[in-house]
Each structure stands twice: as structure tokens, then as C-alpha cells.
């Protein structure tokens, strides 16, 4: 289904939103790792390219710095359409999880 989001797409979009909706590859990878989700840099970019092709994410070339070997950053933000998709999925998941005893209070 073209409008559905995969796990990795949802994770990356949520991370971009979490990082003030204006970020590039390194903070995304670090934030995912901080939340115990390992994803390679290239995987993040492939996921973002897929999302951009669907109009859910937009990107722009940023500044080049010496600590990056003079290579420019590519900044990403989730579009309004992307935010709507995440919100719809969030509402569905919250509805489904509500009242499920296995998902209440704890990790077991």
C-alpha cells in the first residue's frame, strides 16, 4: 500500500520531528542509537529518499564544514503531508493499544 509507513520510515520521520523538524544524517543516527535503534547512515538516507519521493519529507543542501572534510550537509524536514501520515498512524496505534493488558504499565 503506497500510503502506509514501514517501521523504519516511521522511526526516521519521528526522529526528524523529534529533532525540531530540521536536521541531518548524524543527529538522526545518534538519536536513533540513543533510543536503542541502530541504523546505518546509508539506510537513513535511503529511507529519507523514499519518503521524499512520496512527498512526506523535503530536503535542502546545507553548509560544508571542515570537520566534514568540506562536504555539505543535507537537511531534512517532514512536510505537512508527512506530519498528517504520522499522526494518522499514531491515532490508529493508540486506539489499538488502548485497553490491551499486555501493554499496560511495564515492559514484560
Amino acid at each position, binding site marked *: 500500500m503506497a500510503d502506509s509507513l514501514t517501521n523504519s520510515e516511521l522511526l526516521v520521520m519521528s526522529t526528524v520531528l523529534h529533532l525540531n523538524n530540521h536536521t541531518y544524517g*548524524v543527529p538522526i543516527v545518534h538519536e536513533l542509537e540513543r533510543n536503542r535503534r541502530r541504523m546505518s*547512515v546509508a539506510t537513513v538516507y*535511503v529511507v529519507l529518499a523514499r519518503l521524499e519521493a512520496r512527498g512526506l519529507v523535503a530536503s535542502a543542501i546545507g553548509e560544508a564544514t571542515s570537520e566534514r572534510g568540506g562536504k555539505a550537509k*543535507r537537511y531534512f524536514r517532514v512536510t505537512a503531508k508527512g506530519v498528517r501520515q504520522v499522526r494518522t498512524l499514531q491515532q490508529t496505534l493508540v486506539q489499538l493499544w488502548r485497553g490491551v493488558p499486555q501493554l499496560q504499565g511495564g515492559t514484560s
Partner: protein
Amino acid sequence: MRTSRPPVIAEWILHRFGPMPETEAIAGDLIEQYQQGRSRWWYWREVVVAIFRGTWFEVRQDSGLLLIAIAMSWILNLAWHSVITPFENSLIDRYVFGPPGSPDIRLSTAFATFLIEAPLAIATGWTAARLARRCRIPAVFGMAGSLLVVGAWNVWKNTQIAWAADSLGRYFTFVWPFLLPIPLLTVLVLFGGGLLTGSPKRSIRT
């Protein structure tokens, strides 16, 4: 913060085969993290993942175009062989097999085969790259890989008698001059496809 450069060969491989135009951003992100203390092993792993993920993305995006490009390159290859093989054989018979009682001619045969087939290998790589501009790298790799497999299969098929009659070591002693042109021609396919020269153009954007 570290000040040393990341592995040079890995950097070269990423720039040559990485998913352009994302390569610049990915390379910058990798350098930034390497300077922050990531290991060389981590850098190498990220480069390998970048190439495989980028290539797989392109294959999925343009699989039809990719198949057409490889099929057309094979048609060119087979057409060339149907025209040139009789000429090639007579040339080798006349000049390589030459005077009776000559020394081992296997290496000369391999060299002659390489010289005659080199332009075809370059043309094949070029054709695959031109027909599949949006997924050039997978097309050229696909063509080179299939040529490698078919070439090795041909040598195996034509030397089975020697294989059956002898030990593994002796078989390879006999067969290596015939195998030698295959990887060399594969490199020429990559060269013809522009993967070893100039600036590679590929995109995982649509």
C-alpha cells in the same frame, strides 16, 4: 576529536560507487562521525552498506530498465561473437598455433583472445551504461558479473576432459591461461561503463 583521515581506499570506493548525489552528504556524515571517534572498521562497514543499499534501491526503482540494458548488451555481445568468432579462430590458428612443434601456446592464445575481445568488452559496458542511465552502476555490474559467470562456465565446459583426467592442481595448471582473460575483460566492461574513470553519475532520488 580525532584529526586523522578516514581510510583512503574506503573513501575512494564510496565516491566511485556510492549513491550520488547522496554520496556527498553520506561521505560528510561518515567523516564527521569518524572524527568523533568511530573506528576504521565502522567506517568500512558503513561504506559497504552505503553501496549495497544504494544499488539495491536503484535495482528496485528501475528493474525493468536494468533488465533491458543487460539484455541489449548481451544481444550486442552475441551478435559480435557470431560475426567475429570464425575470423578470430582463423586468426589464432594462423598466427598463434603457428609453426608445428612450437612451445606452449596456451598463454599466447589467451593473449590473442584478450586483444580481440577487449573492444567488445568496452562496448558492452558502454552499452549497458548508456541504456540504463538512471541505474548505471547496477547495470554495468550486472553485465560484468554475468560475463564473468558465462566466461568461467565456458572454460569449465571446454576443459572438462582435462578435469576428468587429472588432479585439481594439474587441472588449474592447465586451465589458468584460459581463465586469465575473463577477469581482465570484466575490468574492461567496468571501464567501458565508466565506473573506473571520470565522475560517476547515479541517483537514488526520483
